[in-house]
């Protein structure tokens, strides 16, 4: 388990180093179209080949990692935080407040939030930079993604609400706020961490889906989700495995996050 953790840490450190230094490490401009070489296979010049417009895939993967792997965890953190606040409060207070909150969660889950994203995109000024618009997209995703996690956290807190240590803390005169933050917080941390980790790929994929609708990251900025659009309707993947690079990177990152978190739990 130690070795797995080490592996995960090294892998994540490497990916994040690449993500942070993408603009320096990328061998070519991620947006430049080498029009004489579209759909090129890997070569010394283009290590992962090029896309339909002749843009260097490796450079695009680097920059995509930057967009997706920095912003998706940020959005995941935001949504987990919201879920923790809403879910823990409902679970702790219980009774009609919990019922009301959970009804709210159900309603929230069933609303077509795509329209909100559409509307936000439509009212943004047209000269909004791609970087700002992608940050906004992830911020909205983060604000919308809390509902399912809140339900899980609420259930966790509800179980703890009747535990001996909560009773003891109440008997000691602890205030509800401190009780939630100090006493319950550490006990639901594994749940929060799990929700956080589960959310990361969800947000990367949500952004990918938005990209499919053309509402994700704007051209020419790449994102892992946007790059995965290349894979739809593509029948000849078997002989062109390098096209799977963005998918492989996402998969590796999620695995590393999982290894990292599971080994943490064993340690604690």
């Amino acid at each position, binding site marked *: 388990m130690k070795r797995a953790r080490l592996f995960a840490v090294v892998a994540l450190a490497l990916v994040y180093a690449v993500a942070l230094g993408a603009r320096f490490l990328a061998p070519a401009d991620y947006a430049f179209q080498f029009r004489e070489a579209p759909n090129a296979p890997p070569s010394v010049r283009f290590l992962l080949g090029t896309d339909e417009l002749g843009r260097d895939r490796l450079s695009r993967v680097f920059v995509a990692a930057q967009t997706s792997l920095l912003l998706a965890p940020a959005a995941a953190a935001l949504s987990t935080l919201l879920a923790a606040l809403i879910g823990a409060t409902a679970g702790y207070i219980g009774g009609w407040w919990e019922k009301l909150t959970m009804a709210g969660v159900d309603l929230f889950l069933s609303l077509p939030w795509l329209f909100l994203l559409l509307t936000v995109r*439509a009212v943004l000024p047209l000269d909004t930079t791609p970087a700002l618009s992608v940050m906004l997209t992830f911020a909205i995703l983060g604000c919308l993604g809390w509902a399912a996690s809140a339900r899980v956290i609420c259930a966790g807190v509800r179980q703890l609400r009747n535990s001996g240590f909560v009773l003891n803390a109440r008997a000691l005169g602890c205030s509800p706020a401190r009780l939630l933050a100090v006493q319950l917080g550490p006990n639901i941390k594994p749940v929060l961490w799990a929700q956080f980790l589960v959310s990361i790929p969800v947000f990367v994929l949500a952004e990918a889906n938005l990209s499919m609708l053309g*509402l994700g990251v704007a051209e020419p900025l790449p994102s892992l989700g946007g790059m995965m659009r290349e894979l739809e309707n593509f029948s000849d993947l078997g002989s062109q495995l390098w096209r799977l690079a963005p998918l492989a990177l996402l998969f590796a990152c999620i695995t590393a996050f999982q290894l990292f978190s599971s080994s943490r739990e064993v340690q604690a």
Partner: protein
Amino acid sequence: MIRAARLRVACALSVLCLLAPLRSFAQGELRFCLHADPKTFNPLMVDDDASEAVRYLTGGTLVRLNRRSQQLEPELATRWKTSSDGRRIEFTLREAVRFSDGSPFGAEDVAFTMRSLMDPALHSPLGDSFRSGPGEPQIEVTGSNHIAITFPAPVAGLDKLFDEVAILSAQSPLKERAVLGPFVLADYKPGLFVYLKRNPNYWKKDSAGRPLPYLDSVRLDVQQNREIELTRFRRGEIQLINAIDGEYFDRLQAQSPAEAFDAGPSFDSEEMWFNQSPSAPLPSWKLGWFRSTEFRQAISSAINRQDMSRLVFNNHASPAAGPVSPANRFWFNSRLKPHSYDPAAALRLLRQAGFRVDAGVLHDSGGHAVEFSIVTNSGNKARERMAAMIQQDLGAIGIKVSIVTLDFPSLIERMTRSFNYEACLLGLVNTGLDPNAQMNVWLSSGENHQWNPAQKTPATPWEGEIDRLMRAQASATDPSRRKQFFDRVQEIAWEQQPFIYLVHKNALSAVARNVQGADPVVLSPQTYWQIERMKISNERAAN
């Protein structure tokens, strides 16, 4: 036990389902998909693609537009003549022709059809295209095989309109179910299929004197999903796809090149335009650029249309010169060539108009850096890529372009109400060959005059000139005169670039290997326009 038995029944049924199509193929049945249910089987009321397909396959017309030569050919009329004022047309009809139910065909049937069509109470969309002025047409039956129709005012392209008029029987109790076309409607299950059977009384014969059509039946399956349509084509369950997407085309071509047909440039075009509307909430200097002819010309020459056709459309597109595709043989102005890619010329033009390049950034005479955004509809991969290419091409002459993809309703809102956009990239679908179909686009008062719609008076002299020419061509009847006027419109559009035409996508279709006699063309119905001469060989296409 019961469950096992049920499972076995299910298996047996599915085997039957697999076998059924195999058997029916052997009887000369052609199958393809409609993308929606036909809205009507009344040929006079057709307004949608599915109904039009049924009308084409079942209806007999006086004349037929040859989809390849784009010339009119005799059909139920052996001869016809349009008067010099464009108001009157006379037909001499073919003799010894019978409807599918056996009732005889004659001038009375044509008169009945025209009277029904022009009845204002019917509200026929087809009838509207004959209505050029107030009043009813006069219909004179001058013999059992002779008829003359006189309209109250000249009708542009009068003879070609008869390509769509399927003749009804005046006497048959079956009403519109009695037809003169190669097939008869035999069965229809809404949401599933339309089944057509060979018309035994069809008048046409092949060169060897054998009665046409060769096919016994045509089955039109209602299938909305294009992906499923392609899968069914690959499985051999259907034999034709009229229009397929570039991506599917490449997949099909990779697997079975003999079944993928590229008929060359279609009538549809992709274009970009700048917002010149005075109600646009844009800074005055930006509107100034967009209204500058040199600026638009420079943008046009700075875009590499060849690269666009090659990279975005994988060569299934051609650079566009103007609104009319070279596929439109008569109306295309062949003197016009697409603006060639020449960034140096673009910069020269810009300098003439007072722009200058400082440290790689283009500035206008007021010192404003030139940058603008292009809006396009979201979810269209090809357009997003075209926009990315424009971004790089214009970056090379110091213009910063940002790309904004919007859902269609928001895009339309910006284009038609708020006018809050700078440039727009969209496609235009052309259905008719005739320039009258584009009236609303070119008249400065038109709603579809996208760069500056619904003007009270033309904003520029050249728009005034286009207005004048479009009205002149619409009222002229001599085709060559009309062509002269419309050629000039195309030239002005080419000089002024209110629409910067980029490419014409090619017409791509698919025809199974076991189908003989198909000759895919650009005009609809691309693959089955000569259905009566098509055959299907008995063995299934080997995949």
